[in-house]
């Protein structure tokens, strides 16, 4: 009887071991794998664009920042157009525009590329955030998967970045700004960014936005820079002037 019980116990342990071995040999399901495949590719921002809704529901700017933003918008409305040819800097809304972006995945990293303005964001998945990152145009982005939602925290944003828009004369973002994004597929062709911006130097409270993107099923190859030097709306003195100097290689008018 005792031998029988012992045999049964041994058999039970062997079965448990076999089951464990079987489970260990099976490939682990990666809940983010399907999301990665779904995220990859080209996307275009869908209206309403964050940059358009901003004036109607402005971020909670501190008084000094609000005054600077007001002055910047009034200067442009009055005909000013300061020289611009600066790389875009990420403030959480950099993709909330009419432009296109591409989502790429490589081991341990997601990369977001804005084709219009050349901003590249490298999102390191699962890496520990550095305590004092060097400020850069894109900041330092650390991502993690929560199921099929990519959560990205970005710090190390350049404190001189114009905020809330890249409008010339806008207030500077300041120190210790942070952006947290929750990125997910609402459906197979709609990618959503839920954005929370924290910027203690210019904001009285976090600013939250939502921007959706529509999948673009084609290759897009028209990256071009934005510079006042090639903008006929702005003259060399920074005024809004419609420059009608004909191109040097303009062909002659038709005969007759």
């Amino acid at each position, binding site marked *: 009887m005792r031998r029988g019980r012992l045999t049964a116990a041994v058999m039970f342990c062997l079965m448990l071991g076999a089951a464990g071995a079987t489970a260990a040999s099976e490939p682990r399901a990666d809940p983010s794998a399907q999301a990665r495949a779904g995220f990859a590719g080209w996307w275009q921002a869908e209206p309403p664009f964050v940059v358009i809704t901003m004036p109607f529901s402005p971020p909670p700017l501190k008084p000094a920042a609000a005054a600077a933003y007001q002055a910047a918008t009034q200067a442009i*409305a009055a005909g000013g157009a300061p020289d611009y040819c600066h790389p875009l800097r990420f403030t959480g809304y950099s993709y909330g525009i009419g432009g296109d972006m591409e989502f790429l995945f490589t081991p341990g990293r997601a990369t977001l590329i804005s084709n*219009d303005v050349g901003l590249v964001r490298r999102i390191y998945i699962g890496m520990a955030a550095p305590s004092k990152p060097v400020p850069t145009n894109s900041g330092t982005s650390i991502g993690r998967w929560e199921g099929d939602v990519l959560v990205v925290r970005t710090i190390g944003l350049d404190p001189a970045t114009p905020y809330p828009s890249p409008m010339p004369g806008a207030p500077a973002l300041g120190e210790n700004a942070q952006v947290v994004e929750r990125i997910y597929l609402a459906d197979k062709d709609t990618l959503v960014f839920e954005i929370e911006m924290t910027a203690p130097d210019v904001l009285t409270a976090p600013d939250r936005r939502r921007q959706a993107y529509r999948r673009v099923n084609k290759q897009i190859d028209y990256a071009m820079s934005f510079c006042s030097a090639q903008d006929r709306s702005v003259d060399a003195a920074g005024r809004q002037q419609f420059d009608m100097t004909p191109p040097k290689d*303009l062909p002659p008018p038709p005969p007759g």
Partner: protein
Amino acid sequence: MCAWLRIAATVMICAAPNLASAHHSYAMFDRSRTSTAGGVVAKVEWSNPHVFVWVYVPKTGGGYSLYAFESDAVTRLTHLGWSATSLSAGDKVTIDYNPLRDGRPGGKLISAKLPGGQTLVTTNDGAAPPGARP
């Protein structure tokens, strides 16, 4: 909405075609009027932040006037069906546009009708025209 927010809204709505173009107000164009000019394409400057189209427009007494039309950014036009070769030098074209307030020949391009009947549109006030969803 306070006055400066209205101004900000106007500037940003006009800048909708692209982020980096939050740099001018479009006040140089009379957005309340639409004019039409027919002629021959002289040149297309396919570049950001604005594509420019130059057109020779026949004058009543003979000869041509050179018109300049500002359009949107390459990105927006591409999604609206334009390409760098949609218009080429020598093409006959009819342009609808918001004229320049100062009376010079040209303005903000609204649409370009090609000889074959195809009409290419641009955004106006930053809003995509009906059916222009990329």
